[in-house]
């Protein structure tokens, strides 16, 4: 049962009027918080932002990826396609490495899964276009992305500060075994 006071409030729309007044006040007397993107305001992504993918290159400028397929296996939206074959010298060659970015959810699992730190997510996020095809990342495009978005110090910092692949300092549950790389390699 409503009290008399509440009853009066309801009849005279007191709450409604209060709300409207607040709206009006905000509308007229506070500055807008909307950022005028992309024409006026452009805030750079913070380091570690998960944007467009890139395939890392090593010091010699060669692709780091060996085509182990772990990123693709781990990817929750299954948008990474990897095709490998046996090369001339019988080693494994990555023929195609493709990411269907429209389906990517930028979870970063691929980055974590990679034992070599070969797949990365750059800070670049502005790549909306009018065609789907250009959103389909091929191996060449992904390698290009590395040069574009991780050139020089940036790449190094990326690995130092942010995406540390599971294999270097991951702590699993107690007793879990993991691949720690081969310390005495070659």
């Amino acid at each position, binding site marked *: 049962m409503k009290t008399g006071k509440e009853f009066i409030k309801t009849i005279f729309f007191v709450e409604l009027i209060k709300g409207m007044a607040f709206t009006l006040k905000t509308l007229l007397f506070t500055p807008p918080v909307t950022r005028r993107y992309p024409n006026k305001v452009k805030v750079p992504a913070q380091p570690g932002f998960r944007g467009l993918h890139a395939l890392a290159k090593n010091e010699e400028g060669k692709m780091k990826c060996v085509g182990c397929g772990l990123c693709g296996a781990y990817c929750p939206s299954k948008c990474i396609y990897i095709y*490998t074959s046996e090369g001339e010298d019988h080693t494994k060659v990555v023929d195609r490495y493709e990411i269907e970015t429209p389906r990517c959810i930028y979870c970063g699992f691929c980055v974590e899964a990679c034992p070599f730190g070969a797949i990365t997510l750059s800070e670049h996020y502005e790549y909306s276009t009018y065609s789907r095809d250009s959103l389909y990342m091929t191996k060449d495009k992904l390698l290009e992305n590395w040069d574009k978005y991780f050139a020089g110090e940036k790449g190094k910092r990326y690995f130092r500060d942010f995406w540390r692949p599971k294999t270097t300092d991951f702590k699993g549950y107690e007793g879990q075994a993991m691949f720690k790389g*081969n310390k005495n390699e070659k």
Partner: protein
Amino acid sequence: MITISINGKEIRLEKPMTVLEAARSAGIKIPTLCWHEQLEKYGGCRLCLVEVEKMPRLQTACTLMVADGMVIRTETGRIADVRRGILEFLLINHPLDCPYCDKAGECDLQDLVEKYGPVTGRFKEKKRKVPESLEDPVIVRNMERCIVCTRCVRMCEGVQGASAIAVIDRGGHSHIEPFSGGRFDCEYCGNCVSVCPVGAIMSKLHRHSYRPWQLVDEVETICPYCGVGCTLVVQVRDDVIKRVVPKLGTVVNNGLLCSRGRFGYEFVGSKERLTKPLIRIASKTHDASRVTHNEIFREATWEEAISFVAKKLEEIKDKYGSDSIAGIASPRCTNEDNYIFQKFMRTAIGTNNIDSTARTGFAGAQNFIENIFGQGATANIIPGLSNSDSVLVIGGDPTAINPILGLQIRACSRKGGNILTIGKVKGLRFFNPVSLKPVLYTETVLLEGIVTALRERIGLPGSNPNLEAGIKDINISDGEIEKTCGIKGNDFTMFMKILSESSTPSIVIGKELVQSNSGNYKLLLIAAINYLINGRIYLLSERANEQGLLDMGCAPDLLPGYRPLTFAEFRRKYENSWKTSIPDKVGFSIFEMMDAAKEGSLKALYVMGENPVFNLPDARSVEAAMKNIDFLVVQDIFLTETARLADVVFPALSWSEKDGTFTNMERRIQRLRKAVHREGMEDWRIISEVSKHMGVPLNYSNPEDIFNEVSKVSPLHRDMTYEDIEKGEAVYPYKGEPLRGVSEEIKFQVPSSKFQVSDKKLYLKLERPLFHSGTLSTKAPALVNIYPEAMARISPDTAKSLSLGDGDIVRVSTKIGSLELPVSVDKELDNSSVLLSNNFEGKGAFSLMEYTLDSVTKAPCIDYNEARIEKVNI
């Protein structure tokens, strides 16, 4: 009853077994590495350690037998510590190159380390480095990864029986050697590949092009090569077959395969495959081998080619009558294809001129044996062989012709059974055979001697008077055998002792026997031996569906279900169900077709999935006959020698691109399943299209439809469905009625004169290699890598007398032709033979072999071709 408790769960067991087996039967998983259900127990890896109450030390579950009242724990802290330790030791030398290793994802070591392994290793020294070896044609070895579980060695020695590998060196240097090149040759079965728990031994095929979890499409189907009918699992990625693996628990091959089945699948994706129908533009007198196929044919649309064929066949039928047309069916095509083909020939064309290359041995021999023992006499279960107490092998090497059947014979020997061989059986030479090797052309005498001795030892049982009438007068004494066949008396006595005393004997008959002089008489003698010892007969079958094609009625004298055409009653039944009339005249056999073609009375020939120009003896005259045919239609997957002579060539879908059924040599019907897609039509569909254009519609929408009709009309397959086949219930005698107890009078011919042989002469013999089957396998690069080219095999003595060595080029010539080939010296060979295979294009033994037809089995006898060898100087 034994009661034990594992992890607090009470388990009651009927019979003694190991703790591991008991745990598995109760669904408790114990980790293992060296144990494998197909192999002998080893107890080497110690990963399966369990705690047993009242036993102070941990015990290996895979070797410990259960005892009543045992209390076992499989996962305790103590066990975990030990397992962690073992895995840490294994990882000391294991490279941990999982990202590159093709095994990752299905590697036992990876899984176990993930579950039980140490967090990090404490071992600081360098790991061993062994370069990967790619020397073998189909196997890659990476001995860094080997954990010395010896599964591969136990597989190779104890199951495959090749003993090609062993653990070499000790401790951290242990590795597995030598595969090929050792004293015992690797048979490239790849069974070691299936059991290796890590990536130490792997297949070279499609290496690095897939990860196990990417092989999402998996299809269970039947091997396309031989009559054993092994179940294969075809694994596909993006419509390309990436690998073929066996499956544990399948009836015929239970987790094993031979080199052809495992490594021979690549022909499917061959670039040489036909894609479009072809119509001839060049004249027939062209030497087809000299010109490219663009000069002989033009590409046509399906519609055009089909209506053209239909029109031409109609014309020929109207002008020269139905019997001027003939058809050759295929032992590589499914039952459904073959059923439709014979129905097409019998209804749309109206002739019984239909036959196949099964006529070159299998059909005649089976018919002969069934006439004596009743239908189904050769339908014996293959795994049963290993339970025989003796196996008699004659007329071929089962370990090369039907390798998985051969393994059963080896298993029989291992279980203590006796192996008896007549003639050279290379694949069984290490299995303690009692081997009789009669001098050339004296096999008949030896067999007569065996029959005589058995008759004396066992006596005639009297149940088959017909057969007994045939053998009662045979009388060859031991002395005569020694004199004529050059067999020592002792050997013969031992042989006879084993044979006559065995209670569950089996007899394995190869085609060589059927294709030799007086083959029918030898078959009679073998039948008599079988009768006297009460054995089971296995007839080796070189093609996947040789049996099925006969069951489907692709024979000039048989209707589907093995019903003789000459019985009006049977004919009427088929006429009623097909609603048409069937000619009553028995048609041409495949050899009669060739004769008719030569003399010009055969005007048209329809060849489905067969290559008679290559696969029939005296190939050159077959070629001449084919050229003499007005209208030749060939349906195949490659442009074969025969297809090159055709007027119209239809490209067909191959083995893994279609559905259907195969019937193996034990008469088990099994499902063939489509694994990859390809544009085009199945053989049966092409034929029904042609038939439709001829005004005789054969309306089926899929192979199951066809099979349902078969099970309606063929009394042998009555009421059988695809469902029964899937359930594995399609084993002879099925649900229908075989024609048992047909006891016609036994026809045979006692050879009148014995062949005169001189030691000086060489005879050309057919080699039936393990790594090839017909020409199909030569389109599979892996098999070609193993066995790359045709070779003339001669004995060391022959080689010496002609001063020849391995690799020298010689000219092998017979009366009808000659070939230039490299020589290979074969220690096992006798001095009177030159072996040549019939697999490689342009180098087939059949192009040098004349034949005479056996008067009863109608099989070609090809063992009398004298050959000369001379060195070619280059």
